[in-house]
C-alpha cells in the first residue's frame, strides 16, 4: 500500500470518528446545536470518510499506464490530499459560524477558500485516476510478466 493511500485512509478514519462524535453529541439535549452542525457532520462522512477511502484505495489498486511515471503522478496525489484536507479543515471550522457571523469578511474568505481548495483537490484526483481507466489489453506490459 503506497504512503499516499495510507494518508487518505487514515485521514478518512479520523474524519469518520470526528463525524460520529458530532452525531453523538448532537443527540445530547444539553449540547445539541440543532441543524447548525448537520452539514459539517454529513460532509465529514461523505467527503472526509467515504470519498477519501475510495480515493485512497483506487490510487493503490487501479493499474498505472506507465510505471516509470509514478513519481510525477504521486505529486498530483499528494497535492490532491493536501488541498482536499486543507479545504475540509477550513470548511469545518468556518461553516458553523456562517449563520452567527453572516457577512463577516474572515468567514467569507475562509468559506470561499475552503470551497476552492476542495474543488481543486478533487479535480487533481480525477486527473490522476482518469488515464488509469483502460482495458487490460492497452496497458503497457511489464517485462517478465504475462
Amino acid at each position, binding site marked *: 500500500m503506497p504512503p499516499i493511500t495510507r494518508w487518505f485512509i487514515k485521514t478518512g478514519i479520523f474524519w469518520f470518528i470526528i463525524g460520529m462524535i458530532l452525531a453523538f453529541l448532537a443527540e445530547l439535549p444539553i449540547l445539541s446545536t440543532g441543524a447548525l452542525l448537520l452539514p459539517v457532520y454529513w460532509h465529514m462522512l461523505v467527503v472526509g470518510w467515504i470519498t477519501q477511502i475510495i480515493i485512497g484505495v483506487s490510487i493503490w489498486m487501479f493499474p498505472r499506464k506507465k510505471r516509470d511515471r509514478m513519481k510525477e503522478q504521486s505529486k498530483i496525489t499528494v497535492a490532491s490530499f493536501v488541498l482536499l484536507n486543507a479545504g475540509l479543515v477550513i470548511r469545518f471550522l468556518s461553516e458553523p459560524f456562517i449563520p452567527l457571523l453572516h457577512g463577516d469578511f474572515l468567514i467569507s474568505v475562509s468559506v470561499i477558500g475552503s470551497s476552492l481548495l476542495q474543488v481543486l483537490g478533487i479535480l487533481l484526483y*480525477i486527473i490522476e485516476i482518469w488515464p488509469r481507466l483502460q482495458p487490460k489489453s492497452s496497458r503497457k506490459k511489464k517485462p517478465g510478466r504475462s
Partner: protein
Amino acid sequence: MPSQSIWMIRLSLIYLAITIIIGGLLLIHKAVPVHPAVWGLLPVHFELAIWGWIIQFVMGTAYWMFPRFMKGKPRGSTNIATLMVYLFNGGLLLLLLSIFDVYSSILAPAGRGLLLFSVTLFAALIWNRILSYRKRTHDH
C-alpha cells in the same frame, strides 16, 4: 478492466466533478449570496454525490474486481452488464430532470425504477462471484 467498469467509473468521476463544483457553489452561496436559484441545486448535489459518484463507482469497481468465473464468460453476460450501465445512467438523468420540474410526476418514479432495475441486474451479475477461489476449488 472491462469496458462496462471503465464507463461506470468514468461517468462517476464526471458526476464527482459536477457535484463538487455544485457543492462548492452552494457553500460559497451560504456565506456570500451568489444567486437565489443556487439553492435549487441542492437536490442535484445530493443525487449526484450518492448515486452518480459513490454508488456508481463502487458498482463499477466491484464488477471489475470480484472473483471471475473459471468457465465461460469471466464476469457473466456482458450484454446484461452493458444494460446495467445504460439503465443506471438513464435512471439518474431522468431523476435529475425531475428535480427541475420537467414532468417530475412521471420522471421521478421512472428514474428511480430504472435505478432499481439496474441495481437488481448488478446484484444478479455479482451474486455468484461473491466467494473465494479456494472454496471454489474445493467445491468443484
